[in-house]
Structure formats: C-alpha cells, structure tokens
C-alpha cells in the first residue's frame, strides 16, 4: 500500500515535470515550424532565387535577399576581427595576469558591458559614435579613398559604425567564455612550462594551445551574438541594401530589415519575405551556436578523464 503510493507519486512527479521539459523542446521546434509556415508564400514564389537576387523593392513586389545576408555576414565578421584579440587579451589578463583583488571588479565591469541594453548602444551609436566615425571619414586622406575599402561619401552611418558597435557588444560574451575555458586548463600545464624555463608569455601560449578548441568555441559564440544583434546595428548601419566591400557605405542586415519593415508590410508577400529572412537567420544562428557549443563541450570532456587519472599517479609517487 505504502509502496504503491510512493510509486504513483513518483509517476506524477516525473510525468508533470517531464511535460514541462517537453514543452520547452516543443517550443523550439515550433519556432522553426512557424517560421516556415508563415513564409510559405515567399518560398513558393521565389524559391532559391530569393537568395540570389539583389533587388529589394516591396512596391514592385520584387524581393531579393542577397544584400541582407551579405550585410549580416560582413558586419559580424568585421566585428569578430576587431573584438577577438581584445576579448582574448581581457580573458588572459583576468585569468592569468592580474592580481587577485583586481579580478572581481574587472569581471564585473566586463559583465556590465553585456548588461547594457542594445537600444542604449544604439542611441549612443547614433549621437556619439556616428559623428566620430564621420569625422574619421572626413579626415581620410585622398590616397586611402582610392582603396575600395575606404571609398564612399563620409556619412558616418555605415558598415564601419556597425562593425565597431557590434565588436563592443560581442567582447563580453567571447571574453567570458574564453576566461572559463582558460580556467579549465590544468595548472600543471603552466607549471611545466615555467619549469622548462619559459617566459610568462610562453607559459600563457601553452595554456592557450591547450585550450584552443574552447577558445574557437568562445569566438564562435560571439559570432552567433553578432549575427542576431538587431537594434544597435539598425540604428547605425544606414539601412541601404547593397553588396559592397566599402566600410564607409551604408548597408543593411537581415535583422535590421525585419525590424524596419515588419509593421509596414501591407501585403502578405512582403510579410512572408521578411519572415523567410527571419527563418534563415534562425537557421544560421542555430548552426553557429551548435558548432560553438560542440567546441566548448569537447574542451570540457577532454579535461575530465585526465582529472580522474591524476590520483593513482599521486598515490604511486607517495608509495
């Protein structure tokens, strides 16, 4: 009698908590399904053509999304290029170099960078960063303008401003993961390097090498963040769909076009085209995040067997 009560109790407990867990999984699947369902008109109408054409003209009913993919990838890659060395430097400084009393405040400050809402970044971007970028662009010498990378009118808004603001926003994410990963490197790695006469940097390089997969994961995680960032980029990138290498020209991203045009989309085809962009953004970030998590996981797994193997060796040494 008692046993059976315990058993039904366990049954309900597991069933109910399990149902909620299932709900979370269903939710994620539902996002994918809903995005495909709500973009069917555009998928049927344009097919792959959607991603191969450059004209985006809602009035004429022409929808080509290539410039948005370009803008998203280009701005995120640029942001990664700027933020990765800085984020790594911060992670190394906090986990390897700085005195213990500085660690907590520094961690707090970098986390603060992640806590600031993206709309505040955007506001600051419009009124402070964009004028600054414009003055940089005005001051660009003539010979530099000849390079396609720096051609274009000095508007201030454009790819450079977007990449800069994105890199600031991504730094806390990649640096905090890189810090965790570096913490997972066994102290013996560094001690071994020092024992062989390594300088401080050479010992750090050993630790970095040991942690390389996790660090790649950290950088990818930042990339995923940059791809999906909406408000700050929308406010400074200039919102003009074109494929261009120039840092000075205004461009457009996938997230930005959804944010700008979604409420104004009057006909269904326009709305479905926007949702299709959202669907592809969903898929891209999904893949990037999965790869990044795989890297970070493999780093964590690699550590465990070694830690387990350690005690017997120590026991042998004392014996």
């Amino acid at each position, binding site marked *: 009698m008692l046993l059976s009560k315990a058993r039904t109790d366990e049954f309900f407990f597991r069933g109910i908590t*399990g149902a909620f*867990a299932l709900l979370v*999984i269903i939710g994620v699947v539902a996002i994918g399904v809903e995005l495909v369902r709500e973009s069917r008109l555009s998928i049927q109408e344009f097919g792959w053509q959607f991603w191969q054409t450059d004209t985006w003209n809602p009035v004429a009913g022409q929808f080509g999304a290539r410039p948005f993919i370009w803008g998203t990838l280009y701005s995120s890659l640029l942001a990664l290029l700027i933020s990765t060395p800085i984020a790594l430097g911060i992670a190394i*400084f906090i986990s390897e170099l700085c005195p213990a009393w500085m660690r907590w405040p520094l961690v707090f400050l970098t986390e603060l*960078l992640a806590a600031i809402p993206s709309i505040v970044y955007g506001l600051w971007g419009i009124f402070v960063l964009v004028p600054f970028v414009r003055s940089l662009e005005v001051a660009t010498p003539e010979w530099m303008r000849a390079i396609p990378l720096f051609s274009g009118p000095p508007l201030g808004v454009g790819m450079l401003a977007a990449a800069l603001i994105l890199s*600031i926003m991504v730094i806390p994410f990649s640096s905090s993961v890189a810090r965790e990963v570096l913490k997972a490197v066994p102290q013996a790695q560094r001690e071994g390097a020092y024992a062989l006469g390594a300088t401080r940097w050479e010992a750090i390089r050993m630790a970095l090498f040991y942690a390389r997969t996790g660090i790649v994961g950290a950088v990818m995680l930042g990339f995923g963040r940059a791809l999906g960032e909406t408000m700050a980029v929308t406010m400074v990138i200039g919102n003009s769909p074109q494929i261009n290498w120039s840092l000075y020209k205004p461009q457009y991203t996938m997230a930005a076009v959804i944010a700008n045009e979604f409420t104004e989309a009057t006909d269904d085809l326009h709305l479905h085209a926007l949702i299709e962009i959202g669907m592809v953004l969903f898929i891209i970030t999904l893949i990037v995040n999965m790869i990044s998590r795989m890297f970070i996981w493999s780093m964590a797994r690699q550590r465990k067997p070694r830690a387990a193997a350690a005690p017997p060796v120590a026991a042998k040494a004392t014996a």
Partner: protein
Amino acid sequence: MIRDRYRRLLSHVIVGLCGLSVLVALVPLALILFYVLSQGVSSLNWAFLTRMPAPVGEPGGGMANAIVGSLIVSGLGAIFAIPIGIISGIYAAEYAGTRLANAVRFAADTLNGVPSIVIGVFAYGIAVLPFRQFSALAGGVALGIMMVPLIMRTTEELLRLVPTSLKEGALALGATRARAVFTVVLPAALPGILTGILLALARIAGETAPLLFTAFNNRYFSTDIRQPISTLTVQVYTYAIAPNEDWHRQAWAGALTLVAIVLTCSLLARIATARMEKLQRGS
C-alpha cells in the same frame, strides 16, 4: 643571450598588450555610461516619470505610460516563464542523464542563442496574427520565451549544488521524491533561483526587438493587456530616430532610466550571490 633578451621582451610586450586590451574595452563602457548619465540627468525629471507623451510638435511631456507598459510586459513575461523554467529545470536536475533531460538542456541552449528579433517574429505568428491585434500579451509571450532558458538553466545548476545528503535525508525519512524536492531541495536553492530570475528580468527589461511588432506602441496610457502598449525601450527607439531635438532629449532620459533599472537588478543579484557564497563558506 640575444635570443633570451628577445624572449623576455616579447613576453613583456604581450603582457602589456593584454592589459591594454582591458583598457580598450573599458573606454567605450566609460563613454557610454558618461553620455547616458550626462545627457540623461539633465532631462530626467519628475514630469518625465509622471507625464504622458506631449502631442507632436509640443515640447515637454514624459514617458509615464511607457514605464508602466514596460513593467506590465516584463511582468507578463515573468508569469509565463517562471513556472515553465523552474519546473523544467527540476526535471533536468532530477533526471539528469536521461534522454529527455539532455534534450531539454540542448533546447534551452538553442533557445538562448535564437536572435531576439526572430523570437519577435515567432510571437507575432502565435500571439498577434490569430487575433489580428498587437497586444501587451503578445509582447509578454515574446519576453517570456526569452526568459525560459535563463531560468531553467539557473534552476538546474542551483538544484545540483544542493548537497545530496539533504535529499537523501528526506528520502530516508520516508518522503517521496516529489516531497523531498519541493520541501527540502527547492527551498534550499530558492535564494539562488530568485537571483537568477532577477538577472533574467534585468536582461529582458532592456529588450526592444521582440516588442516592435508584438506589443507595438501606444500613445496613450493603457493597462489593458489585449491592447497595444507602449514600452520604455520601443519609445526610446521611436524618439531616437525621429528628427526632433526634444525627443532626443527624452530618449536619453529613457536610456538612463533603462540603465538604472538594469544596473539595480544586476547589482542586487550580485550582492545576493556574494552573501550566499559567504554563508555557504561559513557553514
């Protein structure tokens, strides 16, 4: 010898560069906080907090409706997310290692990485389209979806930190698993879970993108969750991109309010965490 000196020099240079990169990251942080404070304080006043937006072209007015709206929408999000997050977190911790636990953990991490604008599109599809109406409720759904993975992962991690001897003690006294979890393990982890909820709230209170086409905006004071509602973040966005000096001023004041809310939440959470760690070490 020369090579040795070179190695030492290189080491110093790189150590210096690492320190420099910390400074490079702190400069924008300082600049942002400086501008938000200096621009915001001058326009943040009682009228801003208590008045309604002024008609177009008229200076003055405030964001009272947006502040209330933000509270309502974030609150709705929390109402959706807290039960789902905590209960699925309990499953992930109690049945760790089962296939469903791994799957739900994976789903939560995936959800956490989904761009907020995409969450907005999804919420539009399930909570706006069927009713042909933007609403505070739809905004709450969007924010709730973003909160679930945050709350779930915190709950799971904190439940695992509770010493197993506590649960075993309860089980040995004849408690069922459900009773052990709800009366012994969960209360022990509760302060930490509340901290996690606070942090999640701080994060979603600053979200704009998922609200643009779910909660939309409203020029009037509204507490009806079936109607569109104004929120602080969307209002700041609208004012920031409008060509109107007075609105820009208000956008800065709104940004200051937002930063103040977010910072207060994270500071509170941090103090609570520090205190808990001290308690744990003490015992």
